[in-house]
């Protein structure tokens, strides 16, 4: 089973990376950019029989390791 985890910074949390990327895009001549946020994307291939149990397991992984829940949100997508 394949899972994708999208990890993004919580609203209001400073994103120095996003800021620098936006600035650089501006300098390169791209216009109309209001906001850039950088997150992470983790793809996991896991042996599990069914979606619900995979989902539960991956949620555990996010809580324990993958996301820094102090400042990050995450979303799981299983295919």
């Amino acid at each position, binding site marked *: 089973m394949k899972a994708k985890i999208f990890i993004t910074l*919580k609203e*209001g*949390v*400073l994103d*120095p990376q996003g800021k620098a990327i936006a600035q650089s895009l501006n300098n390169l001549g791209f216009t109309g950019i209001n906001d850039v946020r950088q997150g992470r994307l983790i793809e996991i291939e896991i042996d599990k029989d069914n979606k619900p149990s995979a989902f539960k397991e991956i949620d555990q992984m996010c809580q324990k390791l993958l996301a820094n829940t*102090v*400042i990050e949100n995450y979303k799981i997508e299983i295919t």
Partner: protein
Amino acid sequence: MTNSKNRQKKVSPLTAYDLGLTISEYNKVIKILGRKPNFTELCIFSAMWSEHCSYKSSKKWLKTMNYQNSSVICGPGENAGVIDIGNGLAAVFKMESHNHPSYIDPYQGAATGVGGILRDIFTMGARPIANLNCIRFGSPKYTKTKYLVEGVVAGIGGYGNCVGIPTVGGETYFNKNYNNNILVNAMTVGIAESNKIFYSKASGVGNPVIYVGSKTGRDGIHGASMASAEFDETIDSKRPTVQVGDPFTEKLLLEACLELMESDVIISIQDMGAAGLTSSSFEMASKGKLGIEINLDMVPQRETSMEAFEIMLSESQERMLIVIKKGKEKDAEKIFQKWELPFSIIGKLTNTGNMTLYKNSSIVAKLPIAPLVSEAPEYERKWKKTSHRNNLLNKKLKKINIEKSLLKILSSPNLSSKKWVWQQYDHMVMTNTLIGPGSDAAVIRINESPNALAITTDCNPIYVNGNPKLGAKQAVAESWRNLICVGAKPLAITDCLNFGNPEKPEIMGQIVEAIQGIKEATEYLDFPVISGNVSLYNETDGKAILPTPQIGAVGIIYDIDYIAKNIWKEDELIYILGENEIELGCSVFDEIIQNTGQFQPPLVNLEKEKKIGNFVLNKIKKGFFKTCHDISEGGALVAISELAINSEIGAEIEAPKGSSSEWWFSESQGRYIVTIPEKQKNTLENETKKINIPCFHLGKVKGNALQIHKEMSISLEELKTCNEAWLPEFMTN
């Protein structure tokens, strides 16, 4: 006072309580204002009167450590202390805690701790030249410890490495009493021209107040009150107050501020640290006995619809508040534009004595500055002397094997090598690091001249716990000794006093006695405290950390050709200078091998300390000693092992006749290990005899093993592996 656009929360005594003010403090607020405060005003009071900003529990005692000498240019009270180092230069330094934030988010907490102390230094006009960090964690067996170590170390490195200031020293320590309350104390040392120091005192009515640096977000709101509150189970709900550090912006801010300081534009400058805009603007105005007017709409904001109290309390990082000369706005703007930093004129100095805040063209807060500062609460908390227990007599001592004991101690969490930590820190950038981490003191060359600063941090909380006064005195003495070891003349110290809840008399007693110990040692050694920080309420569920008065010390070397290192040469003779008593109370040996629970730490004799120290220093300066290492935790045999490992050469040594195996592990104070070529034997022995300094010939540098005749032989290989393996193994398993 409020219009429709600025609707504020209702205020009641309960609101005040929730913000961390006691009911009597709230009544004092009403008395000062002659009316009920609005919510914004109450928030400002709560931040300014928090333990963190007002030092309300410790002030009375801190004042007693007021010893200064003629080299001190600026003592406690500014962003950092300043001490003259000759040649028109000054060293600027301070240590600060970031304990609670680092527990909540170890990476960001530690990183922003480094950022904060860096700003304290360059605010004074100094270019930072070195970072140090003292980090204390819970037991290695505690589930969270590994994760905390990983994050804190990465955060310290991540920030310092990026800004490009070498991290050259510190301490890493484990003890179960820090399980849920780790300590992250960061220190920065900078260099400035002694007649170009910048202060926070504002002057000149009408001068503009400018804001530069990152935009303001809702980061760390109520952080200052959080740093002053105990932790409990609800900690998770406090999480969103964590700030994220942006070392890249810090680097730009550093360069921009130093560039601006070269022209004649700045009147006063203050970084926005704890309690952000509130404390920085209050500080500047109150020191200058002036009023200040701020238009909050002009504050660069990262988030939408921020309320007045949020803007005032935000602890967004990488921001500075500057009062400049009227008419110089363009000069400042030019430099900040070059460094691509947000910049805004947010207000001006007034003669009203008030802080007046505007938002949406109306006044949202109006507070008298002088009474808010002068009538800040100051408590005379009850305190109780630590009772001295001695359990030794009840225990039967085990017979020990020296070799096994040594290996066990060398591979124990606290005495094992901390290379795993400092390898993650760029300790060489700026190419001035002559001695980096892994020695007694770091040595950093000054501006490529023959001068250098020596820097060290020390504190043994087990000693302080056993006897706070003696333990604190010992910490100062050890830092003094570590500076001597590299050939530096000790100049001054900073401290970071980490303790539990001061409302408990036993804890307050630790604070009082520790301050007494620091006072006694600094006065006797002519070693003034020029800056410091207090971190209280380091408790979780009512259990306090070990009392930890962390000392950071700086010394000066005038000729870098004459420094001593922890490296010896084949065939040299090894000596111990200093009194060789057997003192095992609070020792590592006792903790790890005997476990008698003795509570009395080793004695500190400042008179002898000074005499031996000065002798050693003179000899290093003359090139007589090139190898020097003090004997500290673990005792003589551990110190010898460290020299052997560092030098990759072994030794043949023997204890004084008739001494017991324990002798090797005694932690008697005021001792140095030195080595000399054979031909200097008589000189050393005669000279020390003449001035009555105990000088014991321990053995000879030799071979590939550390050997004690008939008792022990450990190969260098084994010694090194045993010392270096623990931390990397702990972190990867």
